[in-house]
């Protein structure tokens, strides 16, 4: 909506070229490799297999429907909850909102399966045998619909991903000038109404970003639908995709993945249409102070709701996870508790002589390189995402360029990590000209990580930048500041809440996620996520969960640290 000035547009062209080049290398080429792989003569049949064959109903259409329902429901409910909580934390006077705000960022740092396990530990029914959940063991018959399939999958994903929305929307809300809300208060509108009609719509681009992220994560998540869906043969594109690749039908998996990218592109397009490319400048050249809503007696209702939400999504899964690491026996109290999996010396009678994770000599190494990787990727992805979002925001008229940047920055979630990894091996596996091969170095992990986590960085930056009114940057243009300088000194500091939030999300996914790096890691750079994978694949659930907990703690610590540093660096916004 905002006028973009000519002065800003021009140098932006160069940035656009640079960003596009980076995106082409990091995303488009891997994607193109994916497409090419499915077009080879021996693979082209995969297209008809998927789209028009007796298999397609079960291979594609049915999973597609399920994925869309799950993805959209996840996106919508997560946005709703995330936005609600963001409002409570940023704009209301609900007691304990700071703590609620910290807790609300944790679900994302927990692995989705931990949340699924938490769900199971309550709602699991007899269908699978084994140990029933709490309800079933109390003799309450839990219908399949609550135990397995669409409902638990969606709710679990929501519990996991609403914190994406929360983080993005909270950052945006904290930038809304107080006068906008004050003006609404004077109309006599209730707090809820102001929240629903003024505060949240003004940050619609952030809500859209949160939705897009939750949607993409929702459709690409494999662990949760596999855990909770398969028992009732509820298949999604992600389970089909994963299955195809792991049973050796790689091309079919790639076709599914390409179709997923296409669908995501459509959702992105529709989403952007929905807000019609709008961004609402809430950080303007006439300053006004932030404003908090006085919620009166509603305070306690909001408090109860918020606490219930974060308890269900953070504290319960966190406890489930933590407890699972001290259970002598996986998921069962019967054999008692032990700290063995944390600090035990090798004991042949337990877990095939596995040491406690804190005694694993590579654990510390892994911790260090994980944090280093997370940090490097967060920095790199944030930079690329920020510049990309900046360019898209300023080049409103260059639809094709802007659209390409948006799309390329959005789809990395949907490209299977294994395909990404293979593409990076293909691109960087051999020396390029005079440059040595990056393969096997820390650098390639960083590059791959950047590619994979661009969606967070891009979407969060996009919504944050949109809030900075154009005249602020124009004033810097007039002062003679070049693009880089403006970005560094004006645009970045003003949008920093959103940008830093994106960086945190990137960091968290990077320390937690495995799928991409697994093809690229070398023993020289051990990573925590690889350790969990190793433990889990051997059935050492407690040890795997212990590392997972360490990852979650690292993530939360990083989040808190980033917030603190940011707060200290922003004296102007401490109302």
């Amino acid at each position, binding site marked *: *909506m*905002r*006028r973009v000035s000519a002065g800003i547009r021009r140098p932006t062209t160069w940035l656009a070229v640079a960003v596009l080049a980076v995106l082409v290398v990091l995303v488009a080429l891997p994607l193109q490799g994916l497409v090419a792989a499915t077009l080879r003569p021996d693979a082209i049949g995969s297209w008809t297999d998927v789209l028009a064959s007796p298999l397609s109903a079960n291979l594609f259409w049915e999973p597609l429907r399920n994925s869309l329902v799950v993805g959209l429901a996840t996106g919508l409910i997560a946005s709703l909850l995330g936005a609600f909580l963001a409002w409570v934390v940023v704009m209301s006077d609900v007691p304990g909102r700071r703590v609620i705000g910290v807790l609300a960022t944790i679900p994302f740092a927990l692995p989705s399966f931990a949340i699924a396990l938490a769900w199971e530990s309550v709602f699991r029914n007899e269908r699978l045998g084994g140990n029933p959940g709490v309800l079933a063991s109390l003799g309450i018959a839990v219908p399949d619909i609550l135990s397995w399939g669409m409902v638990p999958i969606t709710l679990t994903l929501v519990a996991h991903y609403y914190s994406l929305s929360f983080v993005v929307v909270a950052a945006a809300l904290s930038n809304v*000038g107080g*006068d*906008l809300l*004050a*003006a*609404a*208060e*004077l*109309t*006599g*509108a*209730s707090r809820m*109404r102001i929240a629903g*009609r*003024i505060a949240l*719509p*003004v940050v*619609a681009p952030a809500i859209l970003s949160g939705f897009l992220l939750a949607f993409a994560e929702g459709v690409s998540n494999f662990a949760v639908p596999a855990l909770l869906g398969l028992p009732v043969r509820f298949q999604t594109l992600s389970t089909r995709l994963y299955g195809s690749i792991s049973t050796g039908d790689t091309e079919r998996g790639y076709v599914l993945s390409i179709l997923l990218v296409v669908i995501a592109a459509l959702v992105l397009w529709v989403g952007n249409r929905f807000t019609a490319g*709008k961004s*609402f*400048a*809430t950080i*303007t050249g*006439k300053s*006004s102070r932030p*404003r908090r809503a*006085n919620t*009166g007696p509603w305070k306690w209702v909001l408090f109860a709701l918020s606490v219930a939400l974060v308890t269900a999504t953070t504290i319960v899964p966190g406890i489930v996870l933590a407890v699972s690491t001290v259970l002598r026996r996986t998921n069962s109290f019967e054999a008692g508790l032990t700290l063995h999996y944390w600090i035990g010396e090798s004991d042949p009678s337990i877990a095939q002589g596995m040491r406690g994770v804190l005694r694993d000599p590579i654990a510390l190494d892994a911790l260090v390189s994980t944090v280093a990787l997370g940090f490097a990727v967060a920095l790199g992805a944030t930079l690329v995402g920020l510049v990309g979002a900046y360019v898209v925001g300023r080049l409103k008229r260059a639809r094709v360029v802007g659209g390409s940047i948006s799309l390329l920055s959005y789809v990395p979630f949907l490209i299977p990590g294994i395909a990404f990894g293979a593409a990076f091996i293909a691109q960087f596996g051999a020396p390029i000209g005079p440059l040595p091969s990056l393969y096997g170095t820390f650098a390639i992990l960083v590059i791959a990580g950047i590619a994979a986590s661009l969606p967070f960085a891009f979407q969060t930056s996009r919504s944050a930048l949109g809030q900075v009114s154009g005249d602020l940057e124009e004033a810097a243009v007039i002062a003679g500041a070049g693009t880089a300088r403006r970005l560094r000194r004006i645009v970045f500091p003003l949008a920093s809440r959103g940008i830093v939030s994106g960086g945190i999300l990137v960091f968290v996914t990077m320390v937690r996620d495995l799928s991409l790096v697994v093809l690229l890691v070398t023993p020289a750079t051990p990573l925590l996520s690889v350790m969990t994978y190793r433990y889990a694949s051997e059935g050492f659930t407690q040890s795997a969960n212990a590392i997972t907990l360490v990852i979650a703690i690292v993530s939360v610590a990083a989040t808190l640290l980033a917030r603190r540093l940011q707060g200290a660096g922003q004296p102007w916004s401490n109302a």
Partner: protein
Amino acid sequence: MTAITLDRLGKDFGGSTALHEVSLEFPSGAFVVLLGPSGCGKTTTLRMLAGLEEPTRGRIRFGDRVVANGDTGESVPAEKRGLGMVFQSYALWPHMSVRTNIDWPLRVARWSAADRQARVTEVLAMLGITALADRYPAEISGGQQQRVAIARTIAARPQVLLFDEPLSNLDARLRVDTRAELAQVHRATGGTSVYVTHDQVEALALATHIAVMRDGRVEQFGPPAELLEHPATAFVASFLGTPPAVLLAGEASGGWLRRSGAELTVASGEGRPLKAMYRPQDVGLGPSGCLQFDVVECTPLAGRYVVSGLSDGDRVSIITETPVAAGTSSRLILPETPAALFGADDTRVTA
């Protein structure tokens, strides 16, 4: 009917005091204009009236009801005070079109769709922004935004209207038209309005009462004519009027005000510093004058000329019938006796 009482109202921001103890009574139906230099506390006062800022001290009463009490911290929330405010920063909702910006408050006030439609059309026309109804705030000019802000505020006809420099970005013609509309709205609701402006013509045209503020204090409060005719302090005298009164400082002794090389008749006077006030239209220019005057600028106004210049360090504006070239020098011819005298503490000295 809402009389508004400020009772030793004060506001601190962190260490600094924006408003000292201000006590004022705005009768019901009054149109009160707050005048004062930049940063004197006008916006702060308005925001406290609106309930957007909590007073640090003192109380605000609407009629008999205490709406804010800085001593106990109690206060009626803004949305319960039933008032409208035009913000200095406009505060238009950027995600709503011009029409929706105006319509939404009516919707909140539960107006029927037909009434809303009619009223929105009416205020759009009243402010000359009908053609912009479907644009968004970012797509219209500064003055147009300001008019939308006014339209939004008056549409619901609130009983108490607060205006923070509502016409500052409008051209002279539009300003005259719009202030007539505002006066009309004020009369129609029968409510009380508080209005901040830097435009004295506007202030004089609209006000039933003017409060002249300075550094967080009220220097004088009363009907416009009273302030113009009988300024209580030198500051009020030097601030009000277009151009404001001529003030000349010096030391009084024995009926004379001594001032670099000249002696002016003043009725009262012991050996203390005084300021003599003269009306600009009473001061003449000519070689026979007693005080040196260096002309800085000369602008036409109301068929005459306002000549501003420096007389021995004092900035003085007088009125002449013919233009005087900037950069020239002349002398000020003063009337026999000054219109008023102000003492060292700036307050009026009764002769």
